[in-house]
């Protein structure tokens, strides 16, 4: 039995469900919007964790669950709970169910994509950069500071530099322009992360165990995620990686404890690869839709125990 947890219509979840159906795997969707019909109870013991999940009338022994793909959204903002007070029984049930599901997924003897504990490194980009460096990928030279003078020197040293959030909070990557220098003293209030802008082509590498799906991203904007919104263009193309880079990607994902990861690289004109982030919850559907790479199938195979990870 495999569980897919999240919103049924969310593209990554839907694509993995389709892939599981294609290979004939036994799976259920734990659709968060149906939480009122669900219950869950479990207990730890000397031989692991045991319990039962009820999805409406169906009861599933947790020991039978061999794979779990989690794309859970924040249950507090489920439409079904809108307007309900914090202490409303439906809201309390939803919170308790999700907490029990989340905690069980952290200790379940199943292939979990991905456990929260392993996803933690993404909460700090410079922390993750240090881990990335230990797997043989160079992170872009990075400075985090409250000191405008240090930033000016860093810019002199590296030429074009960008700034972005230190944490997992999504921010639009921007180049530090001359016009920005007038407000540079504001960084004294809260440290800001600056990085040397690495010139080259963005490459997103989805890794599922030993399987690697590299996509070249050519964009008019430094942050391709926002190119379309800002009137630009982005094109995606499946490519092959040099074997040593491919092997490093596999080792990096495994080393971070991630069965499925989205690794962001930049390939320079000299064919050097820099790594600036590992996404532990990659929304791969955009890449699969544009390249035809069978990423969902690889995730499905992993969940079903058909691949090593």
């Amino acid at each position: 039995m495999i569980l897919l947890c999240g919103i049924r219509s969310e593209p990554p979840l839907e694509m993995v469900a389709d892939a599981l159906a294609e290979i004939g795997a036994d799976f259920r969707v734990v659709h968060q919007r149906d939480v009122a019909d669900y219950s869950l109870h479990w207990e730890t013991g000397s031989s692991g964790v045991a319990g039962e999940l009820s999805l409406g009338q169906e009861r599933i022994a947790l020991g039978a669950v061999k794979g779990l793909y989690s794309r859970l959204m924040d249950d507090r903002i489920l439409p079904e709970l809108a307007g309900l007070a914090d202490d409303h029984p439906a809201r309390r049930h939803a919170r308790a169910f999700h907490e029990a599901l989340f905690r069980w997924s952290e200790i379940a003897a199943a292939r979990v994509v991905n456990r929260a504990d392993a996803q933690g490194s993404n909460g700090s980009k410079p922390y993750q950069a240090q881990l990335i460096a230990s797997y043989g990928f160079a992170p872009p030279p990075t400075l985090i500071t409250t000191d405008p003078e240090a930033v000016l020197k860093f810019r002199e040293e590296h030429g074009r530099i960008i700034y972005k959030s230190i944490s997992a909070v999504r921010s639009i990557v921007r180049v530090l322009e001359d016009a920005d220098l007038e407000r540079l003293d504001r960084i004294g209030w809260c440290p800001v992360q600056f990085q040397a802008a690495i010139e080259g082509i963005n490459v997103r590498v989805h890794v599922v165990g030993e399987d690697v799906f590299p996509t070249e991203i050519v964009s008019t904007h430094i942050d391709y995620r926002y190119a379309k919104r800002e009137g630009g263009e982005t094109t995606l193309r499946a490519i092959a990686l040099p074997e040593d880079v491919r092997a490093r990607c596999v080792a990096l994902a495994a080393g971070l404890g991630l069965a499925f990861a989205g690794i962001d690289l930049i390939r320079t004109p000299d064919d050097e690869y820099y790594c600036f982030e590992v996404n532990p919850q990659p929304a791969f559907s955009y890449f699969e839709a544009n390249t035809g790479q069978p990423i969902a199938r690889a995730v499905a195979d992993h969940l079903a125990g058909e691949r090593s990870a």
Partner: protein
Amino acid sequence: MTLVLCENGDASALWAADRLRQRGASVAIVDAPTLGAATRWEHRVDASSASVSVTLVDGRTLSSDRPAPILNRLTFIPLGGLRSIAGRDYGYAVQEMFALFLSWLHAWPAPVINRPAPQGLCGNFRHPSVWATLGAQAGFATRAWTQGSDDPADDAWLPQPAEATAFVVAGRVLLPPVLPSDLEAACRRLGALCGTALIGVDFARDGDGGWAMIGATPIPNLMLGGEPLIDALLEAIAA
């Protein structure tokens, strides 16, 4: 010199600092509000190295160029200063500062007990169900942890009264006299499984009189370890 990073009023940290001084060690205490009021931060990461320099409001500098061992008891980033300046960006600022603290404490090029983890600045603050699972893997009798969709989500974090606490410090196990010595191997295995240099492991007697592991923490009450714990800390920070 040993740095003790701690929350304001952390009695365990103050006790440990005092005991370390009694043993002749030079100790500087830097509390969370002092770190929060730092006047300058500079943290660099590149392919081959990471460095940090923090200038405190009293003029002292913590620098990776002159690294001292750290006894790290920080549970979270200092919030006082952020509250007063961040306004509607407070939530963002908290995450940014946590990310910075996680990175610089990880990068510090001298022993840090404990190194930070994404789940806690002085080590991974694991849920009781995870400790119960790790404890069983380590070979302890554990008290079962039950959870379900009828249980209040936050009850897990209520403290569990312990009857005895053992310590694991960099692989060295300190058992109080009340605990049987056959728990030592499991304590050592738990220390290795959790990957945290210093943990306190809590025990209580079960109905049959045997000892069950009921939890563990990366920020134990150090005073319970007494002088043997100070010995172990001195050994660990000298490593």
